[in-house]
């Protein structure tokens, strides 16, 4: 069992690295406007987009202008998406004649997709028309990912440029993200998934009469096209309620591997995009190494705990084996746990198993992954800029220890940069703690908890860890469609997304104006082991100090009681 875990996880990590390096370099070329293999095909389309929208692709933008347009772009996504969901009953491609989505749910849903969270308080089969799925939700899967990429690229330019005022052109960054990166991968991999059984059709659901003569209605839809971008864009919102556990979304262990790879590939590749853009590949590798280390620790732990299984079963006299409750047999416990570690290290949130039914310590891993602020690869773009915020804090702390003014990549890190980095790290943490506390204090919040005992606290903590960090996976037992949770999670998603994004662009704006100091013998090198170890330390300490009490009263207590046979 242990050997299988080691094999599965390390082969996955090896394939990831082999793919991430060339892809990251390709992405850097795309964002620097260099010619790529796809340019002959895509250049004309790119030009057409700028002409149609009437935007100027040559104008360089200051950080305020870049941020302003990014927010405006997301605002329109929010507004138009909300209205389309409300009115889906008047729109085409609604074979089940589903009614308009109710107000609070529509708001929660569109916030969830615009913020790259894809927390789902609804069941896809019976709430969303085909039109809403592809024209509202899938669109935001692309555009929220592009927003994240733009933020990361702007920050990379801030380090690469010296004494400049501008960060690039937001129209160009968004368009190229979609056109050169997200769309080509999506088209190709969608067809791979279809070849394995993922459905892609506009037919209405099919009525079947089973072998034993029962009626079964089989839902269909344009699933593959949406599945790919849901994963690639680190979104996570499933076409069906069961998400990537649904056989039509994820039919076999091969697709499960491909889908896990899709989730993590762009956040991983971005490390190398960053390295190439700042002309310091070593720095890219160090960031990648730190992320990979933290990911591997979580992945091994999660697989191991799930393979050990739930002591409840042996206590009832059954054989002790892997924890299969809430898991698909074709994946088994280990692949499901690996997927869970991937989807929460990355802020994706697609699930191929029920995290709520994981063993307490197995379920602790996804929770802890999210509570780091989604920087272990993290969301597309947001993971990298979150990690860089941590890196700035690390050089700041190291500077305090030796009494030198801190630098990162030749840029002096001063009061303003430290404050903004702290905002990036602490805003989601504050939202998690404050809203979880609110939920367990108020009757309206407690009403949504379905598990008794310490697991109830885990459900709440998981919900806000997931939404404030824009992950979107859930301990599904929580009644997420209660008004209290619809509004509080929407708030957590909005603030957890756009406050850090704004802080990052402000940070970029202040860094880009600084001159680059050549490294001196006194400079703390950020491409070595010492820095990597310190960075891991800072992430673990910030995460642990902030959340240890919550984790102790939730999953850790539950594990202790469960191993003594206590049930709730």
């Amino acid at each position, binding site marked *: 069992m242990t050997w299988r875990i080691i094999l599965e996880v390390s082969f996955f990590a090896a394939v990831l690295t082999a793919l991430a390096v060339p892809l990251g370099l390709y992405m850097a070329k795309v964002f620097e406007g260099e010619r790529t293999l796809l340019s002959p095909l895509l250049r004309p389309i790119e030009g057409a987009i700028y002409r149609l929208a009437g935007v100027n692709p040559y104008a360089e933008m200051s950080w305020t202008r870049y941020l302003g347009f990014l927010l405006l772009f997301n605002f329109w996504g929010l507004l138009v998406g909300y209205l389309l969901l409300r009115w889906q009953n008047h729109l085409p491609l609604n074979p089940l004649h589903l009614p308009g989505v109710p107000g609070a749910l529509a708001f929660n849903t569109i916030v969830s997709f615009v913020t790259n969270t894809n927390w789902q308080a609804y069941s896809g089969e019976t709430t969303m028309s085909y039109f809403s799925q592809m024209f509202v939700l899938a669109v935001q899967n*692309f555009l929220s990912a592009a927003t994240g990429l733009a933020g990361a690229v702007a920050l990379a330019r801030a380090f690469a440029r010296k004494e400049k005022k501008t960060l690039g052109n937001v129209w160009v960054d968004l368009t190229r993200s979609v056109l050169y990166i997200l769309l080509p991968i999506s088209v190709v991999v969608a*067809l791979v998934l279809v*070849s394995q*059984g993922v459905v892609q059709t506009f037919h209405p659901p099919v009525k079947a009469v089973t072998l034993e003569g029962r009626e079964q209605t089989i839902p269909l839809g344009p699933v593959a096209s949406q599945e790919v971008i849901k994963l690639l864009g680190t979104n996570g919102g499933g076409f069906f309620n069961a998400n990537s556990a649904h056989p039509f979304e994820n039919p076999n262990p091969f697709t499960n591997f491909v889908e896990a790879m899709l989730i993590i590939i762009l956040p991983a590749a971005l490390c190398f995009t960053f390295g190439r853009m700042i002309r310091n590949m070593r720095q890219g590798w160090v960031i990648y190494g730190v992320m990979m280390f933290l990911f591997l620790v979580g992945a091994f732990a999660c697989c191991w705990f799930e393979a050990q299984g739930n002591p409840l079963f042996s206590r009832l006299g059954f054989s002790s084996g892997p924890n299969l409750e809430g898991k698909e*047999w*074709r994946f088994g416990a280990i692949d499901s746990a690996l997927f869970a570690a991937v989807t929460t290290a990355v802020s994706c949130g697609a699930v191929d198993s029920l995290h709520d039914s994981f063993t307490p310590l197995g379920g602790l891993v996804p929770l802890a992954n999210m509570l780091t602020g989604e920087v272990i690869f993290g969301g597309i773009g947001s993971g990298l800029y979150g990690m860089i915020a941590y890196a700035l804090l690390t050089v700041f702390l190291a500077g305090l220890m030796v009494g030198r003014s801190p630098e990162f990549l030749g840029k002096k890190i001063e009061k303003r940069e430290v404050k903004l980095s702290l905002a990036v790290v602490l805003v989601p943490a504050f939202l998690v703690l404050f809203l979880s506390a609110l939920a367990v204090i108020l009757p309206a919040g407690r009403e949504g908890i379905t*598990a008794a005992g310490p697991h109830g606290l885990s459900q709440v903590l998981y919900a806000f860890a997931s939404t404030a960090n824009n992950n979107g996976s859930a301990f599904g037992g929580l009644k997420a469609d209660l008004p209290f949770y619809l509004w509080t999670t929407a708030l957590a998603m909005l603030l957890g997304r756009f406050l850090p994004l704004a802080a990052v662009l402000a940070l970029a704006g202040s860094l880009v104006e600084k001159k680059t100091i050549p490294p001196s013998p006194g400079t703390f090198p950020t491409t070595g082991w010492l820095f990597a170890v310190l960075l891991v330390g800072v992430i673990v300490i910030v995460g642990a100090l902030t959340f240890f009490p919550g984790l102790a009263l939730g999953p850790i207590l539950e594990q202790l009681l469960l191993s003594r046979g206590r049930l709730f």
Partner: protein
Amino acid sequence: MLKDWGRCLLFFLVLTVLTGLIYPLLVTGLAQLAFPHKANGSLETKDGKVIGSYLIGQEFTSPYYFHGRPSASDYDAMDSGGPNYAPSSRSLAEEVEKRYHALTKENPGLTRQQTPLDLITTSASGLDPHISPEAALIQVPRIARARSVPEEALVKLVKKYTRPRWLGIYGEPRVNVLELNLALDRYFGSPTAGVNRNQVQVHRP
């Protein structure tokens, strides 16, 4: 300023048409051309009527067929999902007991230690089309009795339809329940579907 708002909206709409319309239409077109059977749900038909999808588990309760895993929605494909039991919940323990008792009723003599865990746990989708080979094998005596066929023939069939792990490490060895049951009918004749399944006759070829 107002011009910026309008331009931004227009830009958003252009990208919406590209990713929300052109992209899914392109993928649908290519998928329907290249993999029509898979793209339309891997459906199996019998006498022109759809009897189900290979990928979507269906409920089996008669003694003539292999049964799938417990499902939170009794294999209602419009209601995918699982029960989300906490690992420490009393309801999980009670459910597991219930599932075990239902199993021993159908397959007398099955001890707790022999019970494959996938048969006493619910899947995440409620539509799991697979079971483990072990879960199929413990059902062999029941089916052999119901259909009056030798057990060895059924064991052979289970082995034939067992799919290995991907690359030898990913996933679990598994049998597709619908596929296996269709094979049963093909080799040993189909019990005529009737209202009262207890009186159904097995027609042997």
